[in-house]
């Protein structure tokens, strides 16, 4: 029974994260939220493996953990190449002018 409560708590936390991901306001907030939700999903899968009594689901949880990690790196790399975009990215969905910062497409 306890384990179901844990799953429920995880789901609720995911919802909180989702709200943060949608609200922003900065891209970093969203990345943070995505990362957080990734971790929670991993936990949820692990918990589910025990609820369903299917230990093979744990493989999935492991895969999720790895993939989530790679996703964060892709985002970092994206930031690196798009530093010009970061300033814009601070604005929320109303979308400010997109040429605020001088273009630095080539990275460093």
């Amino acid at each position: 029974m306890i384990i179901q409560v844990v799953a429920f708590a995880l789901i609720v936390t995911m919802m909180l994260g989702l709200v943060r991901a949608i609200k922003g306001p900065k891209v970093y907030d969203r990345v943070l939220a995505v990362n957080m939700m990734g971790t929670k999903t991993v936990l949820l899968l692990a918990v589910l493996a025990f609820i369903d009594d299917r230990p093979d689901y744990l493989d999935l949880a492991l895969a999720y953990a790895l993939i989530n990690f790679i996703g964060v790196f892709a985002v970092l790399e994206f930031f690196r190449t798009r530093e010009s975009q970061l300033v814009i990215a601070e604005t929320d969905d109303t979308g400010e002018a997109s040429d605020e910062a001088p273009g630095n497409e080539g990275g460093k």
Partner: protein
Amino acid sequence: MVEILNIFIMLMLVITALAMVSSRHLFVTVMLSGIFSLLIAASFLLLDAADVALTEAAVGAGISTVLFLGALALMDVEETTRGVRRIRMVSLIVVAVTTIFIVHATFYMPAFGDINAPIHQHVAPWYIQHVPIHMDIPNIVTGILGSYRGYDTLGEVFVVFTAGIGVLSILGDPIKNRQHRPAHNRGLRHYLIPRLVGRMLIPFIILFGLYVQFHGEYSPGGGFQAGALVAAAIILYALLEGEDKALQVIPMRVLYIMMASGALLYGGVGVAALLMGGNFLDYSVLASTPVAGQQWGILLIEMGVGLTVTGVLITIFHAFAARSNL
């Protein structure tokens, strides 16, 4: 209990989807689509589809996010124009009408999870009953995928293969594209900790990929998921150490050969069966007993799938990266 979890996840799915479409910041959309993939994968797991959940996570949250970011690195992340009002109205009407039709028809569909629905009565029980007999492997999904519907899976491999050569053909050879750009790409060198940790993890990811590949008959997984994982590891390497290094480790020639040989391995198994007197893809004739033949066949074709998928995904990543300097 699981039902309640499911309702929550479905709710989150709808919210995420709405946010994805309505957000005007493309980066946000891509991030949300990553979340969407995680959520829908969790939902798949709740619905007993372990293999699908693994695939969706690897593809949706992993590969697809990387690709979208790679493309976004090249373009404005703001959506600058609103749709024409007329078009939006027309779309809304189309969408509304279709929804009404679908919802209307749902009232006449079998209830969710009803074991007496025709879908659970006709073909599926035969599979569940016969996979242990015909090929003696625990994962029924792998059995159907590899043998009963092996021809579909062959098609799937060729879809991936087509995507690979398509992206290459449309974006051009990564090596040639890279030559036109200054060699400044060093990867994430100035992020010391992530780089170290990442490097440490790469062998584990590949190892795990191989486990998924060869353990696919016993647990969720198989060639495609393994391919995606291994490719993800290589992509991680490219992100950390830079494109050029990744291309030195696995050069384009090798990738070409991987793409082609995976597809050919799969087809070759089929043709071999044909030459040995069976029908195309009839693995039973491959070994002394039909069951052993089936097992060998599935193992081989899964390897073919894995090879092609790995090759194609890495190739696609390189092709995008060479353009966008990711």
